[in-house]
């Protein structure tokens, strides 16, 4: 395990940045896809038609930055810890959709979100132990 950088370069700080980036680009992608939706176009199945939206390209910019951050995180944190923790976005994205895109969330879906939060709390312990070893 390489020595952990501190401050801005701290992988856990970058982790938070990465998650914020994912929430932003998912919302941008949905907005871009919705603005260009044309189910009659056969090419739309592979997403090409969404590329005419500037929102989609903005999302691509955020994705590239986020990818660099993610690779940096993977240099220091095992995938089996980093990836489950990155699923914090599975809570943040539906809640952001609910708040910003006005998409509905059913009671069952809220239960699912609660389970994800419990899981994240459980995984946070091995992550903290990893931090002690760093």
């Amino acid at each position, binding site marked *: 395990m*390489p020595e952990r950088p501190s401050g801005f370069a701290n992988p856990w700080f970058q982790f938070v940045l990465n998650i914020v980036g994912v929430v932003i680009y*998912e*919302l941008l*992608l*949905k907005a871009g*896809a*919705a603005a*260009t*939706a*044309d*189910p009659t176009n056969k090419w*739309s*199945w*592979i*997403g*090409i*038609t*969404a*590329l005419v939206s500037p929102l*989609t390209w903005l999302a691509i910019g955020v*994705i590239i930055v986020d*990818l660099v951050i*993610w*690779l940096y995180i*993977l*240099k220091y944190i*095992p*995938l*089996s810890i980093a*990836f*489950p923790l990155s*699923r914090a*976005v*599975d809570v943040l*994205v*539906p809640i952001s*959709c609910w708040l910003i*895109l006005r*998409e*509905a*969330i*059913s009671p*069952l*879906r809220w*239960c*699912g*979100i*609660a*389970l*994800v*939060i*419990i*899981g*994240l*709390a*459980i*995984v*946070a*312990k*091995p992550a903290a132990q990893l931090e002690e070893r760093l």
Partner: protein
Amino acid sequence: MTSWSLVLILIWLGAFVAGQLFFKRAMEVSRAAGFRTRRTILILGIGILMMTISFLLNLGLLQRFDLSYLYPFQGASVIIITLLAAIVLKERLTPRLIIGTLFITAGVVLVSMSYHRP
């Protein structure tokens, strides 16, 4: 959901899982051999190709489904990636990590199921 969209969702997930494993492997190789080696760039390149396939399919699927329904499917990849990280990348799994991962996966499945019972 049609069987065609299910096939696309499975390809989307498979490409995503493979991409993550290639990314982690590329970073391991870069730590041992340096970033600008042919091996690192090749493995990273395959990872980026996988992620690009997954990204384009994601765009196509987003035009047909609500993000809050579609996106958590990706969360089902949590348990797959965690197990494959242990098997392929030889990472150490603890019982606690597996239980936490199962909770996250179960939560994600519940979020996905709730789409059928609005």
